[in-house]
């Protein structure tokens, strides 16, 4: 069966141990977590997890059902349209020739986030596959370090 990438937005009670219930569920049943981000939902007792997972349709259906089965799970949003963004930080030595970097940052919603004596840190926020492309393209500047967030997603 076909391997499908799926973004899940899971709303859970913001309480002790809830993250380990979710990660334990994925580990215990052999499901994939490609990325996971968590943050409280303002002015509520809830948190939102954005989980990027993959599997065949049968596995994905079970993942959603098993997530629902956890007692602190309030809602699992799996279908419909998502705006999905990831963030990447890349540290580039100042010794590099920055020719074309500006155009590239523009193309990927990027900016310079920080700088030091001998480096700059650029930041881009974009779709996950575009982040893939950016991280490939930025290699020509011989980055010292690259950090990538998981996806955050909002259903629209």
């Amino acid at each position, binding site marked *: 069966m076909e391997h499908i990438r799926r973004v899940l937005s899971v709303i859970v*009670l913001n309480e*002790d141990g809830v993250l380990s219930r979710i990660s334990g569920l994925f580990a215990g049943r052999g499901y994939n977590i490609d990325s996971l981000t968590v943050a409280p939902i303002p002015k509520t007792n809830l948190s939102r997890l954005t989980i990027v997972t993959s599997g065949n349709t049968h596995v994905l259906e079970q993942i959603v*059902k098993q997530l629902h089965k956890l007692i*602190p799970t309030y809602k699992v949003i799996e279908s419909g349209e998502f705006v999905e963004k990831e963030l990447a930080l890349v540290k580039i030595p100042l010794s590099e020739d920055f020719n074309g970097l500006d155009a590239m940052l523009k193309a990927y919603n990027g900016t310079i986030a920080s700088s030091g004596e001998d480096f700059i840190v650029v930041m881009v926020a974009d779709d996950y596959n575009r982040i893939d492309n950016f991280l490939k393209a930025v290699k020509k500047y011989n980055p010292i370090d690259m950090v990538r967030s998981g996806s955050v997603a909002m259903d629209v």
Partner: protein
Amino acid sequence: MELSGSQMVIEALRKENVSVVFGYPGGAIMNVYDEVYKQNYFKHILTRHEQAAIHAADGYARASGEVGVAFVTSGPGFTNAVTGLATAYMDSIPMVVISGQVPISMIGTDAFQEIDAVGISRPCVKHNYLVKDAKDLARILKEAFYIARSGRPGPVHVDIPKDVTAQMAKFEYPDEIKMQTYKPTYKGNPRQIKKAIEAIVASKRPVLYIGGGAINSNAANEVREFAQICGIPAVETLMARGVMGDENPLLLGMLGMHGCYSANMAMSEADLMIAFGPRFDDRVTGKLSEFAKHAKIIHVDIDPSSIGKIVPIDYPIVGDLKNVVEAMIPLANESVNADKYKPWRDLLKRYDEIHPLKYEDSNEVLKPQWAIERVGELLGDKAIVCTDVGQHQMWAAQFYPFTYPRQWVTSGGLGTMGFGLPAALGAKVAMPEKTVINFTGDGSILMNIQELMTAVESKIPVVNIILNNHFLGMVRQWQTFFYDKRYSSTDLSMQPDFVKLVESFGGRGFRVTTKEEFDKALEEAIASNTVCMIDVQIDRFENVLPMVPAGGTLYNMMLEYKE
């Protein structure tokens, strides 16, 4: 009014009408035990091992349908309890297990008898709590009981640090409970139910596949009525024994690895499977691609994640089985013609006549199947039948004449050796008017043998019948069939004198080699009104048959074993 955390535990149990708690004290739970000493609401039964306390609470829950309750201490007390929790979780048994924990300030320091208990129990309970403040305790205990018994039942673990059991706080036990995130579905979707009935009407060879959900939902009467109205033959899983009642002509028997021929053929040839609360366990289905491959499937289950987990379902119905079948009955009355399935019923009856469940009796040596049938003849519905795990368990499932739900107490999903004796104690405490029999093996019985002491001390007269083949029999059987008789570590010839052993605890023991001795021992054992052990010397090489080898197909059973 302010109470200490420990007093709250007692009060909460009182509010939940708990009449018995099984447990074992220790440092971290001493405050609670101090309050146990002072109260008169419930009885506390001291087991001799924490695992047994959980199995006893489990046996109590299975026999009574009520929530079983157990107390254990932190660290090793809790880790000993884990097998009990996992056993109950696999079979969806409602329990609340309260463990002590080191004081909050010491959590994370690798303190004496500290272990991350909620971290360990998480995958083997329905839900768990680490209580950080006594002011939350009333709500947590209320939720624990509610979660344990509602929806798909299961064990709930509450870990309480020692300082929380001493902390004073206001105690308000909620009467009602409403959880923001947990809302089980009880009522089946009427449109789905209607479609299911239409599928039944359209079918020619329907079969009822009944699972443990029928017991948990207390739906036996409704299931029997539905089967009767529709004239649909039924098969039961190991967990569902007793739902239909063995005298019911519509019941073919147990299905699966050691199921009977007609039951497995019914599944294989059916054009419609009506699954009432089973979970399509691998010991039932055999090879999935060949499992009931001609059948459309209706699956009724209270747990949505159970539906479609193993096989795709044509007509899913999420809901409480009792509720759903109640809704199906009037529709079935209107539209299902039971006569239509007569040729199908006749065919299955013929299958049963060709290959009934059978064994060859002998005059030289006792056969385990005979012993089980004999207990069935002598005690029938007067007995609740518990088992350990292995060959004796399968023989009991096959040959005991079960007539009502909750008459059968066995560890199905996890297959926990050592379950039988403590579970039998729990069942006897729940149903004191019944004779409680524990069919066990010479392997299993030694895995919680210390509970003979509990039985004697707390005066719980259960009758343990050891079907003793001096082997770890089920593993030996597989070695015979599939490993060229290399009996690796399964010969249990080295064993205690079980008669002296039970008598050293203060119970009664009998060693039996003939049918006459068996009858006499059983009669004396029941009359003795104390814990008994009947060591029945059986044919060493008897096999459980028929058998579908693991991964085999239901329609291709091994009906006999030839050298």
